C-alpha cells in the first residue's frame, strides 16, 4: 500500500503524491521559545519525526527536506524576558530567554528520540525575507499600510478560511479578533508593527520610516518560502494552529506568489491533556500515585 495521509484541507485520507519525488518537502511549525515545551508541544514534534523517518524510508534519506522553525521574535517572548530579567536591557534579556529556551527544547526533543530536522531556521535570521514578502503583498493590494502597521486585508482573498472550513462571519464570531482603529476590517491581521524604543526592531517594509517588528503569523511564510519554495508538499502542526495561524500563513504565501495552494497536504495532530496529578516529594501517602 502506498502512503495515504489525512489532509485537513480536503478532510479526506488521500494518496500522497509529492511534487518532486527527488525532493519531498515538509514544513512543521516549531516552538516559540519562551517557555518549557509541554506534552502538547511535544506531540507534533514526535509525530512528524515518525513521518520524516517514513518519508526517508520511502524516498531515500537524501530526497527529503524537513524544515522546523524556531520562532524567536514574539511579544510573549518580550513579556517573559522583561519579567525574568528586569534589570537587563530588553534585547539582552530576550537573548537570554530565547537561548535558554532553545537549548532546553533541543535537549528535550533529543531525549524524545527525534532526528534533527534538515533545516531549523530562526525567525530573526529571516527578517529580510519577511519584509520582501510584505512589500510584495502591499504591491499586489493584498495588504495595506496604516499608522506604522502593515495589515493583511482578508477581504482581498475570496477563499480565505478554506483550511478551517469557516465562513468569514463564523471566524469573526469565534475568534478573538482585535478591533483597532487602523484596521479596515476587524478580520485583517498584522504583518508588521511599530516597535517602541528598546523593543526589538528592524528597518520597516512598505516605505514606513520608523523601525518595527514582524507580526506572529508572517514568520512562517518566508521561512518555508526560503527553504522549501513557493509551493511544497506537507505542512504540519498542532490542531490549535489551523485557525488563525495556518489560515493566515496560506493567505500570505498564496497572495505573494499567486498560487492555488501553499502546501498540498495539511496534517494536524489532535489535542493532548494530562489528567495525572503531580506528586510532590515528601508529600502525604494519599497523593503518592497519579489518580488517573
Amino acid at each position, binding site marked *: *500500500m*502506498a*502512503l*495515504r*495521509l*489525512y489532509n485537513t484541507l480536503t478532510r479526506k*485520507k488521500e494518496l500522497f503524491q509529492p511534487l518532486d519525488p527527488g525532493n519531498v518537502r515538509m514544513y512543521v*511549525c*516549531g*516552538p*516559540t521559545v519562551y*517557555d*518549557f*515545551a*509541554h*506534552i*502538547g*508541544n*511535544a*506531540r507534533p514534534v*514526535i*509525530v512528524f*519525526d*515518525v*513521518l520524516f*523517518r*517514513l518519508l526517508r*524510508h*520511502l524516498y531515500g534519506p537524501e530526497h527529503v527536506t524537513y524544515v522546523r522553525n524556531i520562532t524567536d521574535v514574539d511579544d510573549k517572548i518580550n513579556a517573559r524576558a522583561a519579567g525574568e530579567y528586569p534589570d537587563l536591557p530588553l534585547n539582552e534579556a530576550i537573548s537570554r530567554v530565547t537561548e535558554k529556551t532553545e537549548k*532546553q527544547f533541543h535537549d*528535550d526533543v*533529543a*531525549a*524524545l*528520540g*527525534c*532526528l534533527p530536522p534538515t533545516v531549523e531556521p530562526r525567525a530573526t535570521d529571516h527578517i529580510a525575507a519577511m519584509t520582501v514578502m510584505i512589500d510584495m503583498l502591499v504591491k499586489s493590494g493584498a495588504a495595506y499600510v496604516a499608522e506604522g502597521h502593515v495589515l493583511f486585508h482578508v477581504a482581498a482573498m475570496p477563499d480565505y478560511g478554506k483550511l478551517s472550513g469557516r465562513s468569514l462571519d463564523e471566524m469573526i464570531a469565534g475568534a478573538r479578533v482585535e478591533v483597532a482603529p487602523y484596521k479596515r476590517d476587524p478580520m485583517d491581521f498584522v504583518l508588521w508593527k511599530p516597535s517602541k524604543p528598546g523593543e526589538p526592531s528592524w528597518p520597516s517594509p512598505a516605505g514606513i520610516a520608523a523601525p518595527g517588528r514582524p507580526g506572529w503569523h508572517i514568520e512562517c511564510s518566508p521561512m518555508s518560502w526560503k527553504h522549501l519554495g513557493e509551493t511544497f508538499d506537507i505542512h504540519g502542526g*498542532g490542531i*490549535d*494552529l489551523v485557525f488563525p495561524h495556518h489560515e493566515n500563513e496560506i493567505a500570505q504565501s498564496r497572495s505573494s506568489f499567486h498560487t492555488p495552494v501553499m502546501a498540498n497536504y495539511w496534517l*494536524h*495532530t*489532535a*489535542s*493532548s*491533556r*494530562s*489528567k*495525572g*496529578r*503531580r*506528586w510532590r*516529594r*515528601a508529600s502525604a*501517602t494519599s497523593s*503518592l*500515585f*497519579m489518580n*488517573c
Partner: protein
Amino acid sequence: MAKSLGNFVTIHELLTDWGGYEWPGEALRFNMLKTHYRQPLDWTYSSLDEAHGILWDWYGELKEVLPDQSIPDRLVESLNDDLNTPAVISTLHELRRKGEFRALLAALNFLGFSGARDKIERLPNFNLDDEDAVGLTVRTMIGALAGTAREKVIEDFILTRSVLRKKKDFVRADRIRDELAAAGIILKDAKDPTTGELVTTWEVVR
C-alpha cells in the same frame, strides 16, 4: 505553540521529576505513539507506566540481538495508512510473542527506540544527599503499595542502587540499601557465574 490549560506537564518535568520518577525519553515517545495522532491524547501516569513496562520487557529480550537489515513490511504498511501507530505497536507485540527479536529490534530502531535497557532505566527521583528524604521516600513508596506495584518500586530502588554502585558512589548506594532494610526489604548481592555481573535479589523479612 500555544500554551493552554490541561496541557501543562512539561517534557523537562517528565524527564526529571514526575510522579516520583525521572522518566526515560523513550517511554514518553512510546506512550505518545500509542494513541493515533488524530485522536485526543490523555496523558496519564498509568499509561506512561505501562509504556515503560512494555519497553522494559522487550529490551530485556534484545540484549544479545542484532537487528535485521530491513524493517518488516507490515510496519511500513501501517505507517502508510495515515501513520497508524497503534497498528504499528500491535505488530511489535506480535513480533515479541513470536520471538522474532531481530525484526523487533529493526522496527524499534527505525521508530527511534534504542532497544537498550540502560537507555530506559527509570530512576526514582529523590534527593539522595538528604538522608531523611531518602528514608521518607523509601518508607512512603513501599508503605503505600502492595502486590506487583510494590515489587516494581523495589526493583526501581535496586536499579538506582546499582547505578550508584557503578558510579562508585557507595555512600549513597548503601543509604538506599539501609533504608530498604529498615522498611523490611533485605537485599542480597551475588555474582552471576557466567557474566560476572552483580545480581541483586531481595526478600521481605517481616
